[in-house]
């Protein structure tokens, strides 16, 4: 991470944790409003569903390339996370949240072990073997909407994923 990015990260985190209302307003102002809601329903009992996790906390495998946090526009790409990964194999790359907590316990941003436990307990059918790590904090979402979101949707459809749990950073 470049020195400039480290300074930006520190300033941003200081701002968002001390002036949370102002941070919310800043984010709100950079977002377009969607008045209608798309509506999907479970097609089978939850106990038979394949459920995937999607996180924007910058979660990825240590063996994968980290998100490019030096790019001022953000990194809209995604990382795949299989369901047999151990917590020790995961890390977090993000400049707008304090990642020290998630690095000690990735389940605070990516509760994969708890999802697998829900499968073992019979609450869901199975935890998906395709889960998605993203790097949030992207204000201009055009590239994500054009390229990466459709790719993830296609991937989920091909994998037969029935439902998704989404966790922010």
């Amino acid at each position: 991470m470049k020195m400039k990015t480290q300074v930006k990260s520190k300033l941003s985190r200081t701002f968002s944790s001390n002036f949370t209302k102002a941070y919310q307003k800043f984010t709100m102002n950079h977002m377009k409003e969607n008045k209608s809601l798309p509506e999907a329903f479970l097609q089978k009992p939850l106990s038979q569903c394949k459920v995937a996790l999607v996180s924007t906390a910058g979660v990825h495998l240590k063996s994968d390339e980290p998100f490019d946090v030096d790019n001022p526009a953000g990194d809209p790409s995604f990382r795949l996370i299989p369901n047999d990964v151990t917590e020790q194999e995961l890390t977090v790359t993000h400049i707008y949240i304090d990642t020290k907590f998630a690095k000690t316990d990735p389940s605070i941003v990516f509760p994969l072990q708890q999802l697998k436990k829900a499968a073992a307990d019979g609450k869901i059918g199975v935890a998906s073997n395709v889960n998605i790590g993203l790097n949030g904090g992207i204000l201009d979402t055009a590239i994500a909407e054009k390229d990466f979101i459709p790719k993830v949707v296609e991937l989920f459809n091909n994998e037969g994923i029935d439902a998704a749990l989404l966790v922010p950073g």
Partner: protein
Amino acid sequence: MLGLYARALEVSHIPTAMVTLFPEITDKVGAPRTLHVPFKMGRPCGEPFDFETRKKVVDQLLELLTLPPGTRAIYQDKS
């Protein structure tokens, strides 16, 4: 951006349940089902090693999947 993923998945008939720290933001983007949690940025499923809370968050998200789109749930600290 996460809300946009939620919407795109729902358009593709995959229901979603999303944790939110800032309901005003996720309402504006139109995330279909949200669970408002009282935690801090960077710790959306609670504090490190607080696995009891983690389980409650996941269980409440799973329950939210069974409720209609437009449901705005609030995290309940009950077991």
